[in-house]
């Protein structure tokens, strides 16, 4: 009999589910969008930010939007409370939360307690802990959830979006989609191992449960 009890080590867990989410989320539509645009940028609807610091968060935002996450209100001076895209220019047309990994995390989760906390929850692990507790993460993730990577707790440098999780394979893995270096099914386990290999074991990875 399998006992699903994990003695996990986690830097922090923030449950935002008390906040009523102002959107519903269609995971199959989010997956379809990832499949269609992971290597074929949707330049008809969105600018490509690869040359402006990377396109990873722009792509994650597009996927969430395709899944049904609603835009917030528009303003000429958007903060972490806003998230929308009507055009490439920051301000009334686009928020920093749409394209910036740190700002995106502060909108859907938080940065040291301050944020819009629009998602359902956010787990913070060190990279080594995430690898040690990989089955726990596998158990928690659903397609369309966000994996954010940071060198410290105050910022994020990369955003990935969960495309799939393995069924019928051990060790278990989670496949993430991303832009900039384009992937549909990059192995999260391998990416975390690579970070540890590069001396980043004590740095951070954030799991944002979108819905």
């Amino acid at each position, binding site marked *: 009999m399998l006992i699903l009890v994990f003695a996990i080590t986690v830097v922090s867990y923030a449950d935002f589910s008390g906040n009523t989410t102002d959107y519903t989320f269609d995971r199959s539509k989010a997956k379809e969008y990832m499949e269609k645009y992971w290597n074929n940028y949707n330049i008809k609807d969105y600018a490509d930010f690869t040359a402006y610091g990377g396109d990873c968060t722009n792509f994650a935002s597009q996927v969430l939007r395709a899944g049904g996450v609603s835009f917030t209100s528009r303003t000429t001076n958007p903060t972490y409370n806003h998230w929308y895209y009507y055009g490439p220019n920051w301000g009334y047309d686009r928020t920093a939360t749409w394209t910036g990994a740190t700002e995106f995390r502060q909108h859907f989760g938080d940065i040291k307690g301050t944020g819009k906390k629009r998602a359902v929850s956010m787990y913070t692990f060190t990279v080594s802990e995430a690898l040690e507790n990989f089955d726990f993460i596998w158990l928690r993730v659903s397609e369309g959830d966000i994996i954010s990577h940071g060198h410290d707790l105050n910022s994020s440098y990369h955003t990935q979006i969960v495309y799939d999780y393995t069924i019928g394979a051990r060790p278990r893995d989670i496949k993430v989609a991303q832009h900039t270096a384009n992937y549909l099914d990059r192995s999260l386990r391998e990416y975390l191992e*690579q970070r540890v290999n590069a001396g980043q074991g004590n740095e951070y990875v954030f799991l944002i449960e979108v819905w």
Partner: protein
Amino acid sequence: MKKIYVILAIFLICGIGLSIGVYALQGENIWSKIYSKDIDNITFDDLKAARDELNKSNLSREEFEEREKKLKEAIMEKEEKEFPEISVSEVKQDVDTLIEKIKSDISFFEESIKYDQTINEKVRERQKIHVDNLKKLLSEVETKEKSYEEYFSEYENLRLKYVVDYQKLRNEN
């Protein structure tokens, strides 16, 4: 003649209705097996189909979470029964595997150099040096003139030197 069309139409409607019914029953059947942990009678393909169906469902978040939890528990139980030993595929210790590892490291660091806006310039410069060193090592390893152990030792030396420098430089401005 008209009667034949009517009879055919009735058969067609019944057939479609029956197919829908059987399909729905099969779907429900999988979920009842998942809920009762009847894992011997579920295949991994069934579990994948259940996941796809779940993703397409219009369940509320709470209902989705509950179903997904049951699904994942069933997957884990089945995997642990079918593959009791965690099959961490043993990393092959040969030159070809090392070549792939070095190439993968180069891509990882090039991604960081180009797009990571949160690292300082000293780290970025150190990463560039590391990538140059890895590229030089790669061209040597590709000749396969030395043993795996010798090349791996050179790789590890480079990696450890990088890690020490990275730890030192990452908090410098």
